[in-house]
């Protein structure tokens, strides 16, 4: 009881977001603003080249310096938020949707369907993620949509497996048994108890995984397989700065900071959500 009381107390304390969670939320809000209305944050244009102002370091005129073409790095980062976020969010949404459909098919569709779907899932999971994406892009060619598709293809099986496992576990829980004993119909039990409880952890995981998908998309862009230049995308900007490491570090460093901070914020917020949902369940 004493130890239980202490942990329960800690559980309640965690419901109040820590300062880090607030900072992360604030940063994500800024990124969202940049993605939706970049003009609110910068007056420049991402493609305005100025050969005379090329490779200038961070300063008053150019907050984060300029690249080899004299384009303002800050402005490009602001405009780069949209394609970068879009890739992360799009890939996750697509992956979650497809994964959920497959997972439910396996869990509720009978034994044969379950075997077929799960073997398929296993095959895809056995192929290293990035390499599978590369295979897809070799076939489809580069571009934002193709990157989203490639990432969704390799994340979907993971979600499918989670949804299936969750569903299987929940079907054997006491509360489903209690609902059965009450005389609820099978459809009602699935809709009211199984699905909502299976989804909760999936949505929390998906939040965190937006960050991972964003990094994956940026990696592919960095390798030149995402949006093609001169589109301002964070991964592609990093690639553009690669050749200037020794003379103009800021070109590659700041887009990297943008990616890292965004992913960090997503992870922090996602983990906070997870703690909340776990605190509620136990």
């Amino acid at each position, binding site marked *: 009881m004493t130890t239980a009381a202490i942990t329960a107390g800690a559980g309640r304390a965690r419901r109040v977001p820590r300062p880090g969670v607030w900072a992360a939320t604030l940063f994500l809000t800024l990124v969202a603003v940049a993605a939706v209305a970049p003009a609110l944050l910068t007056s420049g244009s991402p493609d305005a080249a100025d050969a005379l102002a090329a490779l200038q370091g961070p300063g008053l005129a150019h907050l984060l310096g300029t690249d080899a073409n004299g384009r303002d790095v800050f402005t490009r980062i602001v405009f780069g938020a949209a394609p970068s976020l879009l890739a992360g969010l799009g890939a996750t949404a697509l992956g979650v949707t497809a994964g959920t459909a497959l997972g439910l098919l396996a869990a509720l569709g009978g034994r044969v369907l379950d075997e077929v779907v799960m073997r398929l899932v296993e095959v895809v999971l056995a192929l290293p993620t990035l390499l599978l994406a590369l295979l897809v892009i070799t076939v489809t060619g580069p571009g934002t949509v193709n990157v989203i598709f490639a990432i969704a293809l390799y994340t979907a099986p993971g979600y499918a497996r989670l949804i299936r496992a969750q569903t299987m576990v929940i079907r054997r829980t006491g509360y489903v048994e209690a*609902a059965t004993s*009450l*005389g609820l119909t099978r459809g009602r039990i699935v809709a009211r108890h199984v699905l909502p409880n299976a989804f909760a952890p999936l949505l929390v995981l998906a939040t965190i995984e937006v960050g991972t998908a964003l990094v994956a998309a940026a990696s592919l862009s960095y390798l030149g397989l995402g949006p093609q230049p001169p589109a301002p995308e964070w991964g592609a900007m990093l690639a553009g700065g690669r050749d200037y490491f020794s003379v103009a570090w800021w070109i590659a460093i700041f887009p990297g900071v943008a990616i890292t901070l965004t992913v960090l914020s997503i992870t922090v917020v996602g983990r906070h959500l997870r703690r909340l949902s776990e605190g509620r369940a136990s």
Partner: protein
Amino acid sequence: MTEPIVTEPIVEVTGLHVSFGAIDAVRGVSFAVHAGECVAIVGESGSGKSVTARTLLGLTGDGARVRAESFRIEGRDASGYRERQWRAIRGGRIGFVLQDALVSLDALRPVGKEIAETLRLHRDVPGAVSRAETAGRVLELLREVGVPEPELRARQYPHELSGGLRQRALIASAIACHPRLLIADEPTTALDVTVQAQILRLLAERRRRGSGLLLISHDLAVVAELADRVLVMRDGVVVEDGPAARVLRSPGHPYTRRLLAAVPMEHAKGTRLSVAEGETARPIPARPPGEVVIEARDLVRTFGRRTAVDGVSFRLRAGQTLGIVGESGSGKTTTARLVLGLLKPDAGSVEIDGRPWEGLTPAERREIRRHVQVIYQDPLSSFDPRFDVRRILDEALGVGGEPRRTRRDRAVELLEQVGLDASVLDRRPSRLSGGQRQRVAVARALAPRPRVIVCDEPVSALDVSIQAQVLDLLAELQADLGIAYLFISHHLGVVHHVSDHVLVMKDGRVVESGDVRQVFTAPAAGYTRELLAAIPRLDPHPDPHLEDTRPDAPLDVTAPAVRKAS
């Protein structure tokens, strides 16, 4: 080394205080344990009994603050002990046994290695063994605690041993270095009653050989079997302290009286177990048996090669309680699931109100399900974690055909019926206490106005005073509503108290059945007799040895003559 005949206590604490942050877990506890003496600390969860025990080993836990007016181990002041000194005490001078050896022994190591670990850690105490002698000593210890085939067992892992053998191995690892004091924290709680009796005998044997014993338990009956002296703890404070015979026979403190009144074994059906201070217990009226609501015929159910239920038949009438009692693996729960229609029998049938589960359409089955409700040992897992009490009851009422607009009133009514009020409606069960949760489970079970409630170990996870309240509630509901109960429990005392008829099960078969009084007073089957003999009783059989070692007896007989080492 010669042992003085009159010894100072092995441990002696006065005014012990333990706090975790702002929470005071233990407040002003004092006691002493002598050689050859068994002191028991009894209390419900949160009483501070385990914290007290762990403090004697310097293992109170992270962030604990320990204070005591005096704290002596073997005459030396232990209040300033450093980790190094504690490590010499632990296992060397004081042995420690926890409940449920399955989790208290390292699952990834053979039990022999676990026992050898104690020996390895204490090479410099009197009676220690050398590296070369260790293996032999391990076997000797296993033999000493009554483990057959020690060579084989020492190489086995905890999961390969039965509950009783595991617990013996755990005790062997605790006594390996002949500690003068053995602390046993709920040593038999997870065990079946027959195994529990064996372990209690083993502990009594340790005491007879001169070891001091500090027994921590929630179970007054277990304590009565063994203790010379009893401390009753509640909320960190000792409310009563005295010789076991006195505390258990003529308790001075109202809390002790309430605990004793709550023990179901000693009280016949109809007696109230939970009695508030100053209140006289009104008996709960019995109902005459009504028509047959459940008829089970020759139920058989196998899982793979294992036959879980083998030819079980019974009949349950309205307003009556049929108890099913048996040890783990006896097929009780499978029988319950067959009755609930959650499992299909391989052979035999279950009829609810004369209608068999078999051969019904899904809609008809759902209609019957309403009449047979269930409450579980762990109510929390039977509630959807997203639902608050309102939604839980709303769903159950909806199934019972209650119109939407009257559901709230009906929900409040149900809550009142189970002794809760409307304030819990908006709370999730995870925020309720164990007793409240079980009451909500009962309210849900009542919602569709069932004919029968299957109770699967409904009070096993509850403290004895809460258990008493829930059992009383079930009895009252039966008297008021005429509900029949199929009551499943491993606890013979509980089954004895609640049932009109009982079924004693073993390995899937019914070994004995009949009227509760007849089965419990004049059992026909050998197994039933064995079970009944194994139950620890509040009023233990007189034992000449026990009489001798009471602390209030003359001191010169305290220390037995035989001591193996040190």
